[in-house]
């Protein structure tokens, strides 16, 4: 059954959620909160942003009513699935004083079993990248692994691109090809509203058996493919990744870093919304009596001064150095560290940058200045 495609009518989408919940999954997915589409608990299909879409550009995000009642008619918002797999705040252990010493109790709490509803292809790739970060090295993050092992992924193929999307450049979308349990392509045509559902795993097949389906005909599959192909042609942004690692390593002292530093507010938004940024700090705290201590892990950002602090000062004292660290890590040193780019082309860092700094534009500026120098030299 893996690889087979089925038709699921819109009215039966709830049955998919029911089947997952019956299996013990906590269903989470896109929902509207505080003027944006974020990821949260989805009890029923009605919690999804039905009939809404998002308009995105550098530093700009607006929700808009759609003319139809599409269930997944938007792209990605400020949240990503990392907040479930790699929580923003996590207690690592607690310790209690005993005499002069202390006893440590690790946090072995059983994590929730999540079903992610509406994972876009770029986001799937972000999960694959974090898999490499957290579970593929010398050390494994047991908290990530415990969550990751249990998830059920309902992917959604994008049939329209957002204004800051560039998954085509990063070869991460818009079609989900691997790593999902089920993948849906939403089709609205006249009065018809249905999904083409592709089975990715045996687990996915089992869930789909609880949902009324019909085998998809080649013509249905073709319609779905055409819709996704249209999204691929609509990309709002483009990033040329040719020899990008070498390009950036060659240009660590490029004047563009100074220029971007005059605009960058060092607010860390880009790192918080990025679905692959993984940096954390730890805070050691005690209760008022000093008998109980706790170590809490929290998302951190290379845009803060504290991030690189060693006694005497911060290694990256300037905004220029901090932006350079973020961008070169994402697009260059990530490749050395994990064998993959750290960017999936989701566009979040562009949309949620308060001043609209655009990663694709920054790389283009450096690439073009090099090309200009070369052509000058060449005469």
């Amino acid at each position: 059954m893996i690889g087979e495609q089925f038709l699921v009518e819109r009215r039966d989408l709830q049955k998919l959620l029911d089947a997952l919940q019956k299996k013990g999954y906590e269903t989470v997915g896109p929902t509207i909160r505080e003027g944006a589409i974020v990821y949260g608990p989805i009890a029923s299909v009605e919690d999804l942003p039905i009939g809404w879409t998002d308009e995105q550009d550098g530093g700009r995000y607006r929700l808009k009513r759609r003319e139809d009642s599409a269930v997944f008619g938007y792209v990605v918002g400020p949240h990503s699935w990392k907040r479930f797999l790699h929580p923003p705040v996590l207690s690592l252990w607690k310790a209690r004083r005993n005499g002069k010493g202390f006893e440590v109790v690790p946090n072995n709490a059983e994590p929730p079993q999540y079903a992610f509803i509406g994972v876009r292809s770029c986001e799937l790739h972000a999960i694959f990248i974090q898999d490499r970060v957290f579970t593929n090295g010398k050390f494994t993050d047991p908290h990530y692994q415990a969550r990751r092992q249990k998830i059920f992924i309902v992917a959604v193929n994008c049939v329209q691109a957002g204004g800051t999307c560039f998954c085509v450049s990063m070869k991460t979308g818009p079609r989900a090809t691997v790593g999902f349990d089920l993948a849906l392509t939403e089709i609205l045509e006249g009065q018809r509203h249905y999904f083409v559902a592709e089975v990715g795993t045996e687990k996915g097949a089992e869930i789909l058996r609880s949902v009324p389906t019909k085998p998809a005909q080649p013509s249905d599959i073709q319609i779905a493919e055409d819709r996704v192909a249209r999204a691929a042609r609509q990309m709002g942004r483009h990033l040329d990744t040719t020899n990008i690692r070498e390009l950036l390593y060659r240009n660590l002292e490029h004047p563009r870093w100074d220029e971007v530093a005059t605009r960058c507010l060092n607010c860390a938004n880009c790192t918080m919304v990025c679905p692959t940024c993984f940096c954390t700090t730890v805070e050691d705290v005690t209760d008022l009596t000093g008998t109980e201590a706790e170590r809490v892990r929290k998302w951190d950002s290379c845009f803060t001064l504290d991030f690189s602090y060693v006694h005497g000062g911060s290694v990256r004292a300037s905004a220029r150095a901090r932006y350079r660290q973020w961008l070169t890590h994402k697009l260059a040193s990530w490749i050395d560290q994990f064998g993959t780019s750290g960017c999936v082309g989701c566009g979040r860092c562009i949309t949620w940058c308060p001043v609209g700094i655009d990663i694709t534009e920054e790389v283009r500026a450096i690439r073009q200045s090099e090309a200009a120098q070369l052509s000058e030299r060449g005469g």
Partner: protein
Amino acid sequence: MAVTLKPQVITEVFTDPMVPVPYRVRRVRRETADTFTFEYEALDGRRFPFAPGQFNMLYLFGVGEVPISISGDPAHPELLVHTIRAVGTVTKPLCQAKPGDIIGVRGPFGSSWPVREAAGNDIVIVAGGVGLAPLRPAIYYILNHRGEYGRVVLLYGARTPGDMLYKKELAEWRGRFDLQVEVTVDAARPDEWQGNVGVVTTLIPRAHFDPHHVTALVCGPEIMMRFTILELQKRGLRDDQIYISMERNMKCAIALCGHCQYGPHFVCKDGPVFRFDRVKEIFGRREI
């Protein structure tokens, strides 16, 4: 009745690398006005095998955690030795610990000085300030295996005579015939110091070693390492004969928190000891 055994999920038994193990302070020795050497022993009596150059994360209950190099003798894993300078919110109270006090230890982490690979070679060790502490395990190892090396040179520079670590041991080492030890201070009053005055790099031209068959181990502030490398290169050393130890902010020490990134490297995992040719493209570059 037939019993069908289901395949069991085997969960790997491992010590969580984020959980500190309690150690008791056994002895404290004051090195300088703000630097102390501590001997710790595990409450459960466990030994602490490590490689010279590796570091631990030391935790003070409720206060926080800091990366500190191990400065003891790798031949004596029953004792854990750290030399700590009281400069920060964690190191200051850590340095006030008294015998019997308990701290938490995670480690050992990171890469080590290439003491095995360097066998057969001459050795030149260049240390600046508290940079002597991460090198001391290498010195112990080399002296424990003295016959395996050619000439061995230790060059040590401190800011003032009062800032010198391990004075008694330095005196002992200077008394050995199989070890060239040169010490210098940046500044001193004539009544307190009769020795060399000047930065540690001034000692390099007079060190006795064969530049083609020597391994250099260098640790100190980055600026000191940079000028040391230049001097060693002047003596004819290739970049792959020189090893340095880097320092960066660290929170996890297991390459997951991202803080210690140094270009493509994680200092906690790929370092702290680096062969110089592997970092030369970024070494000395500002704010990497």
